[in-house]
Structure formats: structure tokens, C-alpha cells
């Protein structure tokens, strides 16, 4: 058994998994506060990555400035999207809202291809050294950055929901909208802010993945990968999203190892998470951390 390869893959899995976790958190954030299943989550990554590309390559801004501008753009994008497209949908049946997000997903896919082209583009080199040696394994610098950024974002989410006023208001709105309003919280603001934060953080994830793999429409696949992660963790649990993301990341890479070393089927890598999704739905429909609805009689 090739232990070195296994470790390398598991490490990759952990790093990619935390990134899945971050995107899953964004998905859960929208679901929890606005009850919308956002099928366009992957396209948020795509847009973030392309916009940053445009700032860096076409306007040749320095990395930190382009990154900052992208964050501002994504925030505005989230707010406008919520205000223009989703606010009029409040009170409509859930299936209509889901259709709208699927429509958004297709629209953004096409729009980015139209504007930026269908070929893979890559960012200018950000780090001096492409990879460093850690405990005898070669790890790409961008991966380490991705891991650090993910942990940073998670800590940020924790702080935000535990201590900030807006975070508390978002939790209150998720729990009971009428009570939130009775406390003077504007539900409209909370909805807009959850889309803004979700778009912003997804944009960061898009840039990070873009740095490793290049920017192309393949980025939005993450949006689909996030489903097994979210359902594994429980649709309404932020912690569950992180755990689910890491598990899916590890699982993918283990599948890659088993497939590459023994089975040689090819592509087990990309379908393994969905098998797990089906199994989880059979035995634990609320996921690992999801709340079951408590009915008081």
C-alpha cells in the first residue's frame, strides 16, 4: 500500500474539504435565514473568480487591491441580487423560489462564458514559491493559503453569529421573523445581508480555487459538490456544513486513492460523495447536526 500517496491525498482532502465547508456554510446561511435553497451558490464562486481575474489581469491591479475590490463587488452583487430578484419572491411557494435560483444559475453560467470566454484562464503568479515541503510532502502554497483563509473565515463566522449585533439579529430572524420585527430588527436588511455575506465569502472561495486550478466554468461544480456536504451535516447547521465539507473532501480523495490503486474504474472520485448523499438520506434524513422539527401537541 502506498502510504505516502494516501497521506498526500488525505491532506488534499482536508484542505479541499475545509473549502467545501466554507461554501456549504454560505449555502446554509441563506437557507437558514431566508429558507431559500440556493442552486446558484456555485456561480457565486465563478463570478467572484472571474471578477477578480478581470481586476488582476485586465486592469493589472496588484493582488491585494484586486482582491479587496472583488470583495466589495461581491457584497454589492449579493445585496442587489436579493433586492431585485428575490425580494419580490417573498411569500411565493418554495418551488417557485427554487426555480428562480436554478434560472439564476443557468443565467450566470452563460453570462460569464459570454463575457470572459469558455477557456480556462489563470491568475498571475501570486506566490514566489509554487510549493513547499511539509513533513516530507509537497504542498502547493496556494493550498496552504486556502486552508488558512478557510479557517479564518470559519472563525469569523463563529464570532459574527455569537457576538455581533447583526449576527444575533440574523439568528433571531431565522428563529422567528415576527419576534425579530417586534425587537426592531428589519427583516429586509437581514435578508439582504445574508445574501451579501454569502456572495462575499463564496467569492473568496472562488478566487482561492481559481488560484489553484485556474478560472473556468468548472468552478461552479463546487456548487453541486456542496449539496452532499450540506445534507450530510444537516441543512440548517453551520457546524454541520463545516464537518460535512471536510468529510466530503476526505471521502473524495480516499475514493481517488482506492480507485487509482486498486479498482481502476476511473471517476469514482466525482461520484463517491453522491453515493454517500443517498445513503445519508436513507438513514439520517436530517443529517448529522440538523434539527428535527419539534411538534408540540
Amino acid at each position, binding site marked *: 500500500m502506498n502510504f505516502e500517496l494516501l497521506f498526500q491525498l488525505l491532506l488534499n482532502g482536508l484542505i479541499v474539504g475545509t473549502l467545501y465547508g466554507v461554501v456549504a456554510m454560505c449555502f446554509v446561511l441563506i437557507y437558514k435565514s431566508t429558507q431559500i435553497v440556493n442552486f446558484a451558490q456555485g456561480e457565486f464562486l465563478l463570478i467572484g473568480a472571474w471578477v477578480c481575474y478581470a481586476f488582476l489581469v485586465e486592469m493589472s491591479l496588484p493582488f491585494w487591491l484586486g482582491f479587496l475590490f472583488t470583495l466589495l463587488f461581491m457584497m454589492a452583487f449579493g445585496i442587489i441580487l436579493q433586492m431585485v430578484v428575490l425580494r419580490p419572491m417573498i411569500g411565493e411557494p418554495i418551488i417557485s423560489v427554487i426555480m428562480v435560483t436554478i434560472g439564476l444559475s443557468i443565467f450566470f453560467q452563460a453570462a460569464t462564458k459570454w463575457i470572459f470566454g469558455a477557456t480556462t484562464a489563470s491568475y498571475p503568479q501570486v506566490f514566489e514559491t509554487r510549493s513547499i515541503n511539509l513533513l516530507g510532502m509537497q504542498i502547493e502554497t496556494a493550498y496552504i493559503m486556502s486552508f488558512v483563509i478557510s479557517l479564518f473565515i470559519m472563525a469569523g463566522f463563529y464570532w459574527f453569529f455569537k457576538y455581533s449585533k447583526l449576527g444575533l439579529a440574523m439568528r433571531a430572524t431565522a428563529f*422567528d*421573523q*415576527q*419576534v425579530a420585527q*417586534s*425587537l*426592531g430588527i*428589519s427583516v429586509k436588511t437581514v435578508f439582504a445581508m445574508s445574501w451579501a455575506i454569502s456572495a462575499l465569502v463564496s467569492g473568496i472561495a472562488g478566487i482561492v480555487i481559481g488560484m489553484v486550478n485556474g478560472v473556468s466554468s468548472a468552478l461552479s461544480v463546487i456548487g453541486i459538490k456542496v449539496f452532499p456536504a450540506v445534507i450530510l451535516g444537516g441543512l440548517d447547521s453551520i457546524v454541520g456544513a463545516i464537518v460535512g465539507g471536510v468529510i466530503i473532501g476526505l471521502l473524495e480523495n480516499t475514493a481517488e486513492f482506492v480507485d487509482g490503486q486498486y479498482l481502476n474504474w476511473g471517476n469514482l472520485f466525482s461520484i463517491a460523495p453522491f453515493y454517500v448523499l443517498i445513503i445519508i438520506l436513507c438513514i439520517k434524513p436530517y443529517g448529522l447536526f440538523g434539527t428535527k422539527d419539534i411538534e408540540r401537541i
Partner: protein
Amino acid sequence: MAEPARKTDTAQPMLSVNNIEVVYDEVILVLRGVSLEVPQGKIVTLLGPNGAGKSTTLKAISGLLKTEDGEVTRGDINFMGQQIANGNPEDIVRSGLFQVMEGRRIIEDMTCIENLRLGAYTRKDKGVKDDIEMVFEYFPRLKERTGLAGYLSGGEQQMLAIGRSLMARPKMILLDEPSMGLSPLLVKEVFGIIEKINREQGITMLIVEQNANFALKVADYGYIMESGKVVLDGTRDELLNNEDVKEFYLGGGSEERKSFKNIKSYKRRKRWL
């Protein structure tokens, strides 16, 4: 009012509701001309049976009616010189009017302190920490509860809901059935604290109650509603000594009522409506 004679009377009441009509879903008429006044610093209570429209009156004042597809279609509501009928709940909270909703409605998956901090959502000053301590002074037993608010007892949840309203530093609190689902001993405790808050903080209160006994003990003035209308009002003593109130709300009352053959009480009820 332009009449100079009235000005010398008393200062304008903090809250005045003038002949409001409330319609739900554009068709269901719930309030049919309700008027009431709450003077600054006083406790006023609104009594009446189920379905009389007491909670609707409170929601019309606090703006929460909007969240239930209700609308004030006639009349006006004046709070400290401002027209607030059909206003946004957020704006009304910011202007100093805070409603404690029926059935406590605390955020169950948060701790007591998080619930209290939420109460201060509309505030921008730095005094939130001190105010949490102030709330704990009124409700010492909340301080010991560090777990999730969903695990508190009914009485503690009610205390938390009242404490949360204090965090907004309101000028006036609307309390919707603080006694609901509580044991008589706890009701007594809660009403004791309500009176203390009114006295010490000078916060004006409008309390909706079914438990007329307790409510009239703390209130300065009372209104009685039935079927979407105010049918009787008076000071505490007037209401406590009113034969009809004694009969319908306080229990006891006159001798003759004990016979079921006697339909006098029914007649009186008819007259009220």
C-alpha cells in the same frame, strides 16, 4: 386639539388611540372603533374575554399587525405626538414603544444574555452591559440560568421577555398577557416586578390581561373590551366596585346570580354589547 380649555386640563396622554378600525386580510373586521388613552408613567390595563380584540389592539399600536396581513383602516394612533398607525414595527420600536408579545416568544436557541442583547438591537450607546446587570437585578433568577432560553420554565421565560423589553430602554411597554400559563404564585411575582419597574424606571405600560384580578391590582386605569369595542372604562376603583365587572371578571358579585334561572346576567351582557 385647538381648544384652549382642554390644554389646562392635563398634559396630552403619551399614547392615544382614536376610534380605530382594524381589518385582517382585507375582509375580516376585528376592531370596530376602539379608543383609549395611556397617560405618561401610568399602568393601564385592557381587559376582556377571548377574541375581544385586545391583542389586535396592541399589534395595531406596535405595527406588528402588518406581519399578519392586518391594517388599520380608520382612526389614528398617536404616540408622543407622532402618528404611528400602519407604521413599520422597526420605526415604532425606535421611537420608544416596545411590545412584549403573547406567549413570551423568546428566542429559544439562544442564551438569556443573547436574548437580552437582542432587546438592545435598536440602541447605539455603550450602556448595554450595565443594562443587562439592571435586568438581572429585577430578575435575579435569570442570572443563574446560563443554558439555552428554551429550557427555562414558563415563568422564567416571561421574565426574560420582560427583561428583553427593558433592554430597548423603551418609554412605553405593551404587555400581552403576562400571566398566560403561569401559576398564581408566579403571576403575583411577575406583576409585582412589573409594578416595581413602572415605579422605578417610570416606564408607561399598557397591559392586556384576562386575569382581571391581578391586572386591576397594579393598574391605574382600565378598559374593558368585548367584540372589538371598548364597552366600559374607569379608574381602578371604579372598575373594582362596578357590579358588572365583579360579576363577569372578578368572580363573586351579587347574590341573585347564583340561580341559573336568572337571566339578568345575560341581559347585562347584552346591554354591554
